[in-house]
């Protein structure tokens, strides 16, 4: 079990900056994010776009802002659980919280900060019969541990960059790789597309174009998939793993079940300190709502500062908080 002062759900820009504001007050933070990388929407949706409304930066690339935030919070040694989604929040008798992820990682904390943005980034699922029956039993939406696929028969579906890249990567270690794509051309990185076509010509991968995966079959573990071609003919393939790659999209997910006041997919907060209707649970950044709310990074940063001042009393109930400038006090690493 991980023990920390503040557990931050969501490692987007606002969750990251919250580590800084908490760190100034000597509170330790653990961050957890469903994505395998930090940065939230910035890294996932628009890493190379310039942002023009970060104070002090006339223009800054989204990924550069994320990297700068990581540098800025580094002295406070935040810890991370990446690639896992928070499922459960359980209040303990002493008021603290136990947080559990979908992979059963447990985090014990005094304060919960929900900085979950638009929700946790989840893979888009194609309409394939019995897809969910085989999740974790042959169906994977990301390649977390490539070794799992060594010497296996793998079918990938999708036409974007990640489908192309993983097809190429897995073709090096798998026994057999098949890529199924609805269209007949790839508009992803032309370079990867070319490589996929040339590997297909050399018989190193199977490429099935103008086709869709329709159904999965197996007994306990995935064994066979049915592919429907444009002319409606059906093909059956023996397979160990099916990896549909259709990008990620944010979903509110389990947050809706935590008994928090929610208005249109956003958590209602008190603007005094951005606490939710439940004591010790705060919500900052895109995930919260209040009169006049703007979904801007800059607003989330402000919310993080006020949250930290308020959270202090739960982490250090015996101490009195006195406000200090960083210029006066510097940054004292934790």
């Amino acid at each position, binding site marked *: 079990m991980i023990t920390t002062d503040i557990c931050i759900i969501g490692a987007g820009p606002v969750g990251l900056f919250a580590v800084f504001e908490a760190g100034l007050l000597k509170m330790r933070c653990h961050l957890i994010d469903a994505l395998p990388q930090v940065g939230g929407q910035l890294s996932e949706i628009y890493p190379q776009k310039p942002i023009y409304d970060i104070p002090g930066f006339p223009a800054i690339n989204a990924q550069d802002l994320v990297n700068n935030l990581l540098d800025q919070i580094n002295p406070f040694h935040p810890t991370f659980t990446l690639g896992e989604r928070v499922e459960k929040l359980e209040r303990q008798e002493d008021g603290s919280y136990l947080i559990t992820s979908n992979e059963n990682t447990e985090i014990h904390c005094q304060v919960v900060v929900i900085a979950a943005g638009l929700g946790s980034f989840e893979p888009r*699922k194609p*309409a394939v019969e019995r897809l969910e029956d085989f999740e974790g039993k042959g169906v994977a939406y990301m390649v977390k541990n490539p070794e799992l696929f060594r010497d296996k028969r793998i079918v990938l579906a999708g036409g*974007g960059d990640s489908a192309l890249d993983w097809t190429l990567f897995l073709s090096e270690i798998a026994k057999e790789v098949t890529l199924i794509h*609805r269209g007949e051309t790839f508009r*992803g990185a032309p370079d990867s597309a070319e490589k996929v076509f040339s590997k297909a010509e050399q018989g190193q991968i199977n490429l099935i174009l103008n086709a869709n995966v329709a159904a999965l079959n197996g007994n306990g573990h995935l064994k066979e998939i049915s592919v429907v071609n444009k002319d409606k003919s059906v093909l059956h393939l023996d397979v160990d793993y099916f990896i549909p790659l259709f*990008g990620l999209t944010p979903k509110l997910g389990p947050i809706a079940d935590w008994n928090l006041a929610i208005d249109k997919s956003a958590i209602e907060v008190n603007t005094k300190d951005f606490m939710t209707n439940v004591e010790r649970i705060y919500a900052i950044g895109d995930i919260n709502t209040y009169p006049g709310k703007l979904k801007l990074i800059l607003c989330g940063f402000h919310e993080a500062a006020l949250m930290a001042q308020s959270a202090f009393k739960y982490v250090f109930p015996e101490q009195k908080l006195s406000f200090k400038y960083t210029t006066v006090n510097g940054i004292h690493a934790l």
Partner: protein
Amino acid sequence: MIKLTIIDRDDSSQDIEIPEGINLSLMEVLKASEYDILATCGGLGICATCHVAVVEAPDSLPPVNDTELDMLDTLPEAGPNSHLSCQIRVSEAIDGAIFKIMGESN
């Protein structure tokens, strides 16, 4: 006035009228008409959460461009009539078109 017919996810259909020359995308018009459409990236064409299917449209509707097709490739339910509504300019060129809202809701 430009007249469009919008079919929602539950198949309910409604006509909306937009004045000429307002220079909005279909996504913006749908949002302004309170349709539940995510449009996470605000119209940059990089999130694919503003998916619509063209049910009927005049020939003057511009075809999907390459970047749009690239994004649509990431949607499992996209078909030959799929468009990103943020990439469709509302103008006389699409007067009379019928669109169906697809994809994820809020």
